[in-house]
């Protein structure tokens, strides 16, 4: 069942268009993550739904009811802010009670609702403290408590974990996930952190420049990125992107990837402008092999540039003779960078700087993109 719908929503601040026109449907009880770099319009989308901003154009529905023109008060939504926005002059009790007070709930009901939320988040011992006396994690919980206290139709979370240290972030991330499943309230969750998005989201919408690049389950986005942006945004280190060069030699179609010639058998169609390979798709092949690609494998030669040891695995950066492609922050989606490939390797011996290495990846591990950066399905080969 559709619970929140954006239809042709456009938002401009003066001449500056933040969202050029967007459709999105959020299912009932779903946790949908809006993921993207800063300035991509994900927070604006949240604020439009909250009623803190009004769309320039288009319609938003909650539970099938159009809410345009309504203020935040009339929408029955709850929001967790990035800095928590706890009321500094009120105690934890006062903060938790505030939404109930604003609904005009009588004192007894308020007390009951407040205690219920406090219990759900383990805040009971802190009720008489003020926000300034709380730790970061406690503040975060109070903000959550204030959101759940009055059973809203929709939860909005705007980077709720970004002010926490790494360990607390993992812990509270899990708590948020559990809480959301238990309460089964439709939730929109904004973040720029792909790990949060992948672990929490039922579905994830990757945004850029106010446009949803791809919407799907986390595994879908990772395994079948719809375009170069999604491919490069998800994954750490990001997907390696190479520009293939096609040439005819002795009547045979050849392709060169990252400076290594291959027979055409890699099966790459000529309209492919970018080939993507995830770092974990690589393994090290016995050196001195003929190079190039077999029917089902792909090989690339290079020199070890540096190695990052991450415990059970290591990331080897390989210098190849040709530039590779990197996502850019500026205009235009991608640019050429120095020829470094990343390979995530387990169990192979430590490589030293300058050592010559041949990486190999299964042809099935390739992602193809056309000149506009859109994915070309690899199963039509």
């Amino acid at each position: 069942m559709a619970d929140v719908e954006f239809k042709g929503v456009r938002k401009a601040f003066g001449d500056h268009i933040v969202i050029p026109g967007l459709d999105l449907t959020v299912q009932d009880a779903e946790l949908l993550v809006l993921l993207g770099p800063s300035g991509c319009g994900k927070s604006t989308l949240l604020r439009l739904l909250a009623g803190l901003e009004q769309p320039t154009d288009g319609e938003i529905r909650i539970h099938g009811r159009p809410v345009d023109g309504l203020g935040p008060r009339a929408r029955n939504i709850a929001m967790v802010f990035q800095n928590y926005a706890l009321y500094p002059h009120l105690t934890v009790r006062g903060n938790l009670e505030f939404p109930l007070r604003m609904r005009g709930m009588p004192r007894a009901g308020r007390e009951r609702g407040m205690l219920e939320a406090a219990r759900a988040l383990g805040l009971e011992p802190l009720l008489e403290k003020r926000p300034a006396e709380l730790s970061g994690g406690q503040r975060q919980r109070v903000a959550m408590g204030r959101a759940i206290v009055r059973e809203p139709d929709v939860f909005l979370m705007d980077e709720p974990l970004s002010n926490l240290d790494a360990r607390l972030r993992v812990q509270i991330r899990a708590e948020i996930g559990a809480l959301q499943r238990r309460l089964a309230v439709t939730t929109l969750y904004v973040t720029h952190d792909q790990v949060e998005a992948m672990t929490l989201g039922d579905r994830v919408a990757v945004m850029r420049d106010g446009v949803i690049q791809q919407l799907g389950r986390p595994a879908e986005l990772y395994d079948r990125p719809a375009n170069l942006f999604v491919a490069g945004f998800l994954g750490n280190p990001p997907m390696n992107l190479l520009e293939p060069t096609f040439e005819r030699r002795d009547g045979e179609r050849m392709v060169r990837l990252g400076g290594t010639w291959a027979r055409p058998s890699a099966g790459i169609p000529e309209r492919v402008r970018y080939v993507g390979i995830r770092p974990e798709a690589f393994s090290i092949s016995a050196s001195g092999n003929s190079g190039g690609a077999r029917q089902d494998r792909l090989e690339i030669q290079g020199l070890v540039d540096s190695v990052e040891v991450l415990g059970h695995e290591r990331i080897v950066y390989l210098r190849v003779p040709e530039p590779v492609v990197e996502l850019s922050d500026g205009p235009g989606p991608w640019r050429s960078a120095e020829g470094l490939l990343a390979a995530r390797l387990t169990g192979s011996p430590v490589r030293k700087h300058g050592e010559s290495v041949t990486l190999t990846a299964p042809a099935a591990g390739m992602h193809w993109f056309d000149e506009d950066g859109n994915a070309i399905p690899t199963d039509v080969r």
Partner: protein
Amino acid sequence: MSRTSALLRVVLAYTLLLACTLVFIAPVLFMIIGSLKPDALVLAEAGSLRAFLPDTFSLDNYRAVFERVPFGAYLLSSLIVNGLIVGLGLLVNAFAGYALARLRWWGRGAMLGLVLAVLVIPFEAIAIPLFYQLSWLGWRDDWLVQAIPFVANPLAIFLFYSFFLGLPRELEEAARVDGAGVLSTFFLIVLPNAKAAFASVAIVLFLFHWGMYLWPLLMTTSEGVRPLPLGIANFYTLPPLQWGDIMAFGVLMVLPVLILFVVFQRWFVRGVASTGVKG
């Protein structure tokens, strides 16, 4: 740099500071000590060190202040008038400053322009027509007429406006999402967190109006509603001229300000540094 020259520098700095202190403190000491001396000696001893080291102390002058002029009435008037100006002024100007800083409404730009424009109109330029305007209404010679015209203050509106602009927006947005309307957000969330602005503006308003002289001079005739600055000017022209009494009056007049100053020094400094209107 050698140690001796550093030491010399400190000694020099202190010497200069102490010399300045003497200049700043002498008139004040002169007033305080004069208030404790017999009237005739204030002027007679002004030229000698006796001005600062009297041989007799008495509180006679203070008694005289209450006996010769209605000091209590002056003080009460000053307190009431300033209480009204500061109390009402804080509310009215904070309201306006908030509407200008935070709310989205048609007319906001024009109103902000108006406030900034009238900021340059000095009170002295409108004292005469305002006197006429209010006299036509038959409104004069009471406490309210000394206070009400100064409640709405473009400078105070501007100070509140800047303060609210600098307040993090998220608190108000959270309140809105939590179901508060515009007014309840303002009263329940913004006001309790704007104490710094209120303190600064209160002090600026108080400083500016405690010494107010021209307007009450124009608007009041009965001693019962006249404030302290008129009192001391009046006392000063009241024969026989008794300097000890006048100094005692001065000490009493400045005492409330001094107490406030010592207690709220931080806010005084901040308030004045942010405005610079006192004159």
